[in-house]
């Protein structure tokens, strides 16, 4: 077990690519942290820096309290699951699992026992004699996991381990990895571009964009209090609605319609000069149909465009003052295309952003 610490870590490629830009992140012992962000944001690079597969350009990387910038991968006590699985094609499943142990001159009985154990945990006992090419995608994925767990390392590194699986298997394996983590309690850094994976699996989530860490926090912190427009839009599905308004005292003008604010939101609006643009954001699942009973909520009049029936819920696409708004409403609300509706957003669910810095002012 160990902590992992990124201390002002930079990774540059050549003159102008900064794949990881001043990353500061402390990962606790036994923590499962998800590194999430769109493709190309530097997640893999950050992970490879921990593995020792990329040279660190600047800053320090610590595993436990040891600076490992110049320590070879094999001496870092880490195991990595690659996106392509990277199984050794000429070795049986058993040998794939045993390879790392053999290199460490582990006793043969110990190798046998640990491989058997790992195989049992992952349901691979029947396949130990097979070569990787005789396995299905899901089985290969489990061999890759098995190869990491037999080593009993102090840190697991996983780079999009589920991205090559079909949707159903992905959900299953997601749960399997979570269970594995509960059982082993090993510090895990899990890279994914899929915010649903990050939300469901991570003790904490670190959101990256263009090499820069945006926000770190528990799934709920990120969902409830995104620090900027990017995190707000990235976390949550379907993603948050945004609309531009103008500040007017403690309130906001949404086209010709006034949004009356209170509390934190009102203070945020007040902090902007009158007439300045203010970006508001609210999640589809927080929208209700106004019925006059919501006490502290903003009302947003809209015209329904499209209704997508999802069973229990409906996804309503509506136009409001030239903005497309998506709302997730229970199906029994019986909203029809062409209806004029009044959406209500609870005050504490309304996010307010500075449109220039994109930073959150409230919410």
């Amino acid at each position, binding site marked *: 077990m160990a902590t992992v610490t990124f201390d002002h870590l930079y990774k540059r490629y050549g003159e102008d690519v900064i794949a990881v830009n001043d990353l500061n992140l402390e990962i606790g012992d036994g923590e499962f942290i998800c590194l999430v962000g769109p493709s190309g944001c530097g997640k893999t690079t950050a992970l490879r820096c921990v593995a020792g597969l990329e040279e660190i350009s600047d800053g320090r990387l610590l595993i436990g309290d040891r600076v490992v910038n110049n320590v070879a991968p*094999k001496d870092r006590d880490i195991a990595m699951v*690659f996106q392509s699985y*990277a199984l*050794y094609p000429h070795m049986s499943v058993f040998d794939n699992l045993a390879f790392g142990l053999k290199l460490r001159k582990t006793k043969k009985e110990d190798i046998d026992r640990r491989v058997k154990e790992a195989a049992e945990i992952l349901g691979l006992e029947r396949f130990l004699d097979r070569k990787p090419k005789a396995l299905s995608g899901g089985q290969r994925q489990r061999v890759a996991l098995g190869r990491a767990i037999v080593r009993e390392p102090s840190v697991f590194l996983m780079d999009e381990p589920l991205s090559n699986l079909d949707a159903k298997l992905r959900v299953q394996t997601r749960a399997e990895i979570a269970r594995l983590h509960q059982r082993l309690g090993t510090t895990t850094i899990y890279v994914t571009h899929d915010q649903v994976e990050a939300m469901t699996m991570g003790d904490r989530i670190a959101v990256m964009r263009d090499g820069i860490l945006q926000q770190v926090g528990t799934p709920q912190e990120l969902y409830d209090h995104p620090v900027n427009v990017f995190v707000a839009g990235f976390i949550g599905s379907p993603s948050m609605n945004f609309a531009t308004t103008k500040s007017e005292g403690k309130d906001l003008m949404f086209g010709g319609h006034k949004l009356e604010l209170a509390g934190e939101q009102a203070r945020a609006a007040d902090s902007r000069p009158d007439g300045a643009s203010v970006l508001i954001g609210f999640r589809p699942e927080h929208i209700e149909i106004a019925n006059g009973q919501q006490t502290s909520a903003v009302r947003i009049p809209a015209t329904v465009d499209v209704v997508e029936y999802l069973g229990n819920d409906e996804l309503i696409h509506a136009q409001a003052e030239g903005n497309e708004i998506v709302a997730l409403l229970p199906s029994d609300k019986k909203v029809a295309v062409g209806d004029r509706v009044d959406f209500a957003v609870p005050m504490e669910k309304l996010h307010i952003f500075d449109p220039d810095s994109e930073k959150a002012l409230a919410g």
Partner: protein
Amino acid sequence: MSTATAARESAPDVAKSRGPKFLQGWNMAALIFIGPAVLLLAVFMIYPAIRTVVLSFDNGLDNYVQLLTADPRFLSLRWPPGGSIFNNILWLLFYTGGCIVIGLIVAVMATRVRYERIIKAIVFLPMAIAATALGVIWRFVYSPDPDTGLINAILGVVGVDPISWLGNATFVNTALIIAGIWGSAGFAVVILSAALKGISSEILEAARVDGATEGQIFRRIIVPMLSLPISVIAVTLTINVVKLFDLVYIMTKGGPGNASNVIAVQMYQQFSARNFDYSATVAVVMLIILIPVMIFNIRRFRSERVVA
């Protein structure tokens, strides 16, 4: 690829299923295209091959008994071992092995330096030189006269007297094999570096994270993953060795004495001496040596087809 294979393999089945008559199902167009080639093969290869076998039995089994038991130029059973068979075995071990080892090392090293293409071009260059020209070049290199002989010139600088590399029974085979490796290592390099590109870097990284040193990665991951191209090279070079003629003939004619003789050169010598039946016997033995290699090769092609 797979469709073409399927079509090729199902063709005979179709022919069979079209009833008992011999020519039914034969495609006239196919016959017209293949016919001339088959005819030429029959006249210029199959007939001479049969004639060679017949010729070799001119004196019953005598030629074979003579060649295999009483011809020290072919196979010397006394110590130290010698004869062309023995020399061919030396070539097989050191030339084939040398090309593969150098091929592996250069291919792997070349991926780690900036001048990969230049290095590969240099190693591959000798492949473009005809074996006869190669022989002439290396005769100069090995020349006992330090004014023309590169090696003796270098030795002269450190004060060693000129050595007649090709005129000395101790050195001659080594000298020839080195020239042969120089001429063929590029082939191994090119095939192996192409195959090396097919190994995903993530596999090598996985091994590195698993705790393997660069040497262990080379021995336990790279070499086994290249086993197919290595066997292709081994088979190709083995066939080269059994047929080896031009380089040895140009450089030493099998000499000094019989020290560097090989099977094909001996066959030619017997033929020149108008011992046609004995020469044919050598040829047949050569063919027999090649049969296992060919079987191995055909098997491998078949298994590859199944995989593909």
